[in-house]
Every structure is written in C-alpha cells, then in structure tokens.
C-alpha cells in the first residue's frame, strides 16, 4: 500500500472513534472549564492521561480535593482494564521499533476495538496493518486533544445554561455497560458489580464506596472461580 492509501484506510477505520472523541472530548473540555480549570490543564490531562472515563472522575476528585493516594488507587482500579488490552497486541507493538512506546501509551478502549477489526482484514499485509494502527492511534489521540481545547473555549463562550450537560458521562457508561452486558456470555460479573456497588453506596456513603466496591468485586469474582474449580476436580 502507498502511504496515502494507508492514511486514508486508517482515517476511515478511525472515523467512528474520531466522531465520538470529538463529542465526548468537547464535553470533557466544557466540564473542566466549568469546574474552573484552565484549558491548558485540560489539554495536558487529555494528552498524558488520555482515558475518557477516568478523566471525568478526576474532575470530581480534584474538586473534592482528594488526596494523591485516592487518585492513584482510583486510576489503578479504573484503568486496570488497559493492562489486558495490551495482551492482544504484544507481538504487533513490540515489532514497531520506537513507535511502540507511543502505541502502548495511546491504546484506549476504542482504538483497541478498531485494532481488533484490523486483525481480520486479510487483504492488508502485516507491515501495512501496523502502520495503519499507528495512524488510527494518532488520529484518535489528536481528535481527543483538539476536542478538549474546543470544549474548553466553548465552555467559557456558550451563553446558555449548561446545567446537566455532564450527564453525558453517565450516559456513556450506561451504553458501554449495556454493550458489554449483551456481548458477555456470563452475566454474573456485571450483576455482582451492580449489587455490591449499590449496597456499599448505601452502607458507606456516596464518597467512600468506590474503592471497597471494586476490591470486593475482585475478591468475590476470584473466590467464585476458586469454588467452581474445586467443584470440577
């Protein structure tokens, strides 16, 4: 493939991601500006942290004045899924030379999904596919950063009342939850998570239930696996 064709192919593949990043990234920029943070902090976070869901949570953690340990543990828990995404592309990224560092840094839920669809296309050679992955990552990252800036500027310019706009984060999680629930062959992890979170939110209060919920969910899921294994023996 010529370089031009590769870029075009990557752009088409990345388009759904770019559109959703423009939308959610702008929402993020607006939320940050509304919370009182400068556009440059928003941009800095979007370029370095670069993980949608946690960035929104980080706004409320910053507002609460949460301690660094809480921020670190929340980041570790919320983004633990990123570790598992890497497992699918160990060979691909490791053979990309210096670009591999950028590929590992820029892997998100959405680019992971796009990269998985590239694996199935047999008309593309391995080397071309890896170059396409690079451009998918680059376009997605840039659209996220650009949207953050746009949202940040609009956030201070939009004349009408934006109360309730931050609901788009809740809506995002609801849609991801439904998609994952429908595609999963077992539903108990989602149901465990849901019940434990509701229970602990009532017991411990809205500001303290997040980490215990994630830890307890992990523990119960591992316990369930151990019990099932013994039954099989």
């Amino acid at each position: 493939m010529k370089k031009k064709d590769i870029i075009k192919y990557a752009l088409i593949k990345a388009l759904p991601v770019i559109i959703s990043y423009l939308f959610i990234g702008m929402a993020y920029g607006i939320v940050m500006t509304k919370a009182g943070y400068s556009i440059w902090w928003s941009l800095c976070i979007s370029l370095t942290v670069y993980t949608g869901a946690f960035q929104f949570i980080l706004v409320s953690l910053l507002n609460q004045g949460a301690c660094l340990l809480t921020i670190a543990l929340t980041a570790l828990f919320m983004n633990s899924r990123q570790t598992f995404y890497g497992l699918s592309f160990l060979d691909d990224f490791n053979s990309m030379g210096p670009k591999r560092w950028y590929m590992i840094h820029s892997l998100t839920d959405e680019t992971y999904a796009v990269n998985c669809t590239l694996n199935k296309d047999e008309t593309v050679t391995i080397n071309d596919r890896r170059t396409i992955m690079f451009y998918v990552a680059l376009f997605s990252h840039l659209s996220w950063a650009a949207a953050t800036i746009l949202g940040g500027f609009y956030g201070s310019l939009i004349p009408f009342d934006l109360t309730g706009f931050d609901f788009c984060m809740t809506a995002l999680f609801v849609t991801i939850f439904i998609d994952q629930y429908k595609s999963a062959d077992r539903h108990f992890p989602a149901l465990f998570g849901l019940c434990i979170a509701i229970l602990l939110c009532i017991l411990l209060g809205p500001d303290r239930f997040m980490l215990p919920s994630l830890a307890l969910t992990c523990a119960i899921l591992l316990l369930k696996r151990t019990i099932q294994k013994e039954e099989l023996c």
Partner: protein
Amino acid sequence: MLNNIQIASAIAVSFICTAFLRFLSFLSFRKDKQIPPFIQYLGKVLPSAIMAVLVIYCLRNTGTGSWQSGAAQIAAVLFTAVIHLWKKNTYLSITSGTVFYMILVHLLLV
C-alpha cells in the same frame, strides 16, 4: 480550589498510574511467557463489573439530594438505556440521553 502544584501533582500521579498499567503487560510478557490463569480470568470478567460500579458511581448522589434531582437522573438513565437497546447507536444514545436529562433538570429544578 487547588493550587497549581496540587493540580500538577494530581495529573502526574494519574499519568504515572495509567501509563504503568498500559506498559505492564508489555514489561511482564516480553516473549512466549504464559499469563497466569487468574489474571486472564480477571481480564475477562472485570470490564463489565467495573462498568456497573461506574454507573452507580455516577448516580451516587441520587439518594442524598432532592427527590427531583434523583428522579431526573434515574429517568434519564432509563431513557438512555431504552434508546440504546432500541437504536443500538452509542452517539445517539448519549446525545438524546443528555438532552433529555437537561430538559428534565430545567423543568423540575428551575
């Protein structure tokens, strides 16, 4: 409001933790090394459990505020879910759910 050093250190901590997780599998499994089965298992079951916890996190103040704000949030979540199950389009679900919530908030709270 935090000062700049506090914000910068919060961003640095977030970045280091996220980058650590992203690089972890590449640092742990360089070649042909087997991934421990319980890690593989967690990798499979955790994402949907985490999303459930995140949805509840977003709704955590539903019970403590006024009944109007709680009702608006629950109604908008159900609205988003129904649109998503019906049309199966993420952008449409997020946009319509958010607009629905903003209208509800203006009608109920202002």
